[in-house]
């Protein structure tokens, strides 16, 4: 649907003017990394390899959370959300547009923060960095998909920025667990060992299944959520 594209275009145009959301997300991600460096590193040493996936995913989740609060909130300013609902676009298109924007924002954060992560923590990988790409992709897509859905759910409540993280993170646990485990294998496991390769693929499959289930559910239920 072309209208999804136009909703994304609109949000990106606004973001290009202000750079508020992505700016805050990127800065926040970097600060989280710095705090992790202070807590887990001693100068001159490497990050213990078991810590790597946790650092990556906590950073992604925090930065993503920051962006989620702004998925629907700005649409309340001049009641543009009503304007969207009035227009001939389906609610699932509005939802998918918002997911698209958030996904792109979070991807941007990852593209900036990940190289810095390698530099800050002096990381060497066992597997190819290419194996990290699908993990980040499914993790980010699932986070944006479920996150934007629950952001739409909480936008009609009082103080939604308090509610959102509390209701989002328990549901995200399988995805984050999958992400952390798959990332750990990419960084630390021996890729010659078929057992690890198999484990990598099963975690990835878990993430993909999670994404499919929650995207489907969100598309089915979004009409009830955006019905003001």
């Amino acid at each position, binding site marked *: 649907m*072309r*209208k999804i594209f*136009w909703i994304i*275009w*609109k949000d990106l*145009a*606004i973001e290009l*003017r*202000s750079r508020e959301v992505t700016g805050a997300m990127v800065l926040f991600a970097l600060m989280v990394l710095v705090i992790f460096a202070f807590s887990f590193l001693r100068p001159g040493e490497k990050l213990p390899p078991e810590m790597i996936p946790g650092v990556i995913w906590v950073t992604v989740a925090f930065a993503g959370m920051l962006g989620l609060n702004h998925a629907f909130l700005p649409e309340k*300013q*001049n*009641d*543009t959300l*009503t*304007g*969207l*609902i*009035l*227009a*001939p*676009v*389906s609610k699932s298109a509005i939802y998918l547009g918002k997911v698209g924007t958030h996904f792109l924002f979070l991807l941007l954060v990852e593209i900036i923060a990940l190289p810095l992560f390698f530099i800050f923590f002096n990381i060497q990988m066992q597997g190819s960095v290419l194996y990290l790409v699908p993990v980040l992709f499914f993790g980010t897509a699932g986070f944006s998909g479920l996150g934007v859905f629950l952001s739409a759910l909480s936008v009609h409540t009082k103080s939604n920025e308090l509610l959102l993280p509390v209701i989002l993170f328990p549901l995200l646990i399988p995805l984050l667990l999958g992400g952390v485990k798959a990332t750990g294998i990419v960084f630390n496991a021996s890729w010659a060992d078929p057992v690890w390769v198999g484990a990598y693929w099963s975690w990835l499959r878990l993430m993909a299944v999670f994404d499919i289930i929650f995207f489907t559910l969100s598309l089915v239920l979004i009409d009830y959520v955006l*019905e*003001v």
Partner: protein
Amino acid sequence: MIRGENISLKLGEKTILRDISLVVDPGEFVVLLGPNGAGKSTLLKVLALILKPTSGRVIHKYQGSDREEDIKRKIGFLSHRSFLYERLTAWENLEFYGKLYQVADLTRRAEEILEQVGLSYYCHDPVYTYSRGMVQRLSLARLLLHNPEMLFLDEPFTGLDQKGGEILTETIKVLHEQGKTMLMVTHYFDRGVDLAGRILVLNKGSKVFDGKLTSSDLRDIQEFYRAQVETE
């Protein structure tokens, strides 16, 4: 044509609309009156398919298909909220809404409509730099961009100065002559009401008056309305 059948809307413990039925024929100009909090804005939103009623139905009939998407393209809605993105320019706002409404020949249409509301010179400024009146005029442009057949106007005169008000009255007159169906909420009797063929009065969520008016009735309804407001 639009038909509402036994529309009721409850929010929490409040009943905001109570069993309202009405028919608005094509080309009709109906003015909706009522004291603050009567439920006028809410009724408009229900009729414009923004809100779902708790019970009852809203049926729109126009030429062409009955798909919800096609019906929505025939509806225009002007509220006291502008529905505009502050960070985008006037042009970008129209471009975005034009794309959603699949307006044909969008560039020409947007230029034309900006010209009409007198914003051509400012169309590349972001909306947050606009004055209240300019925002109102841009909302009007957004309303008319996709050339809707059925117009819902919720207090369109608020925030406009004398001149702006006159321009709007003139625009409304022209739209009426073009055969648009209109349903307008207003508190100004001297504007618009005399244009209207029919008046609806809402009080506490119920329809209390619905009828055609001659100018001698107008005074009566004004009195009645004042009395209603004063008892609040």
